[in-house]
């Protein structure tokens, strides 16, 4: 039995695959000169970066933003949270996923579902932003 081990499916995205087209006999592969790096979702979503985390989402309050029960979210902790970002917020130490809305001095955590009213952050509330959601991933099967 003859086999060759091709490189791993690229994780960092930067690995160029090993070219192991075997040429013991026969026509050399015309593709050999055109090998490019493999496509890597890790790289697209940047999930190998030290400041990026994956979390799983539950509940239906963010459906308007296309976020459904069971979706994965890519959370970046290096981004400065700004108006309009979907964030993981810690509201009185309770983690929630909301859209961050800054209106003058007001800070509002908005849901994307009419069933869920906006949550105004009040004087006595303690709010910190854990991270900013940059992408979400849903399985369709």
């Amino acid at each position: 039995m003859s086999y060759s081990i091709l490189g791993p499916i690229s994780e960092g995205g930067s690995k160029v695959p090993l070219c192991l087209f075997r040429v013991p006999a026969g026509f050399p592969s015309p593709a050999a000169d055109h090998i490019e790096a493999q496509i890597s979702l890790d790289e697209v979503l940047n999930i190998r970066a030290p400041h990026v985390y994956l979390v799983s989402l539950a509940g239906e309050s963010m459906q308007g933003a296309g976020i459904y029960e069971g979706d994965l979210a890519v959370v970046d902790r290096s981004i400065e949270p700004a108006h309009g970002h979907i964030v993981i917020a810690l509201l009185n130490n309770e983690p929630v996923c909301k859209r961050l809305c800054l209106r003058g001095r007001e800070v509002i955590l908005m849901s994307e579902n009419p069933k869920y009213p906006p949550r105004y952050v009040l004087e006595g509330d303690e709010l910190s932003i854990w991270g900013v959601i940059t992408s979400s991933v849903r399985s369709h099967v």
Partner: protein
Amino acid sequence: MSKVPPVFGLIDCNSFYASCERVFRPDLAKVPIVVLSNNDGCVIARSYDAKPYVKMGEPYFQIKQKLKQHGIVPFSSNYALYGDMSERVMTLIESMVPAVEVYSIDEAFVDLTGISDLDSLGRKIRSQVLRCTGIPVGVGIAHTKTLAKLANHTAKRLQAQTGGVVNICDPIKRDWVLRNTDVAEVWGVGRRMKVHLDGMGIKTAMDLAKADPWTLRKNFSVVIEKTARELVGTPCLELDEPDPPKQEICCSRMFGKRLKELPPIKEAVAAYMMRASEKLRAQRSLCKKIRVSIRTGMFNPDEAKYANGVVIALPYPTDDVRLLTTAAVDALDRVFRPGFSYSKAEVLLLNLCQPGEYTDDLFATSQPTEATRVMSVLDEINGRWGRGTLRSASVPRNPDWGMRREMMSQSYTTRLDQLWEIRCT
């Protein structure tokens, strides 16, 4: 032209294990927590606010009541989480400085030579790591590693005044720190040495810095002499190169419960060998001999005690887990005696060499190339899908002798099925 004096930084995570647990448990931000050793034995880490109530090393079973009384939450150690968070912290540090020596899971020395605004870089490292990982760190900066360690200690001690960053490159600040730090806090000064030094009238770090180096060398060792020189600002230690390959590899663990029969101990020995051989291949060594030992508990007066080990020479230098496991199980057969309650097994790989380094005699067999390839496939699969995905058939997935970890948090960052769940409500 005079040479620029070296500058070192020591970056140290505050209560690292406890801080890791808090990252994904914001509800525990103000709740004191402790982390327990393997098998939930004793306390190995405490959050800042648990320190007044719990000592390091206290056995868990003795302090259960006390923990409850003070509302302290215990965790089993979750090394998958701590390892991943450590890597994140170290990667972030690496991106901000010219060179890093990762000193332990929660500490790194960095080279800051030639950087003009040290204080602001220190603060940037601290804020960047805190923001990107949630782990608070302290930064100590000085002209030697020993002083950087001391500066870091001061940063921790005077957190509120210093903001977690202390730069003692300035001799006036350095001397203040030396005068106001107990000699026991100096890197490398142990409890015993502290007693000796005390007898010599050396009480503060400053006293040690001023002590006569030759007397120190005569009474203690060249190590403490170097420490004293470093305290005055003469660098004797450099940023270390990565460790050379180890000469011995060990995997030893307590069982989660006492084992009386041979089969489960065989499983454990095979599992430990699996891990030891991974370490062996990771440093690209081969091993010529192994030692397997087992023992009963040693402290229970009502139990019969027994401990024994045996060394086995391998037919050729190898890193093949199949051959190593066969040899280990064979070794176990020789030392196992029925009628005892075993608590621990240990697998040791000995006489390590690099491939090509050992001298073959002309007729000696060496490891078949197929075996080397099988091992690299094994490591690749486990590297990609997680340790233990592909393993020897003698290693069970969830052994009942496995480590007791009853209060373990999720592996939030390394297991897809254990991610942090956020509710959209």
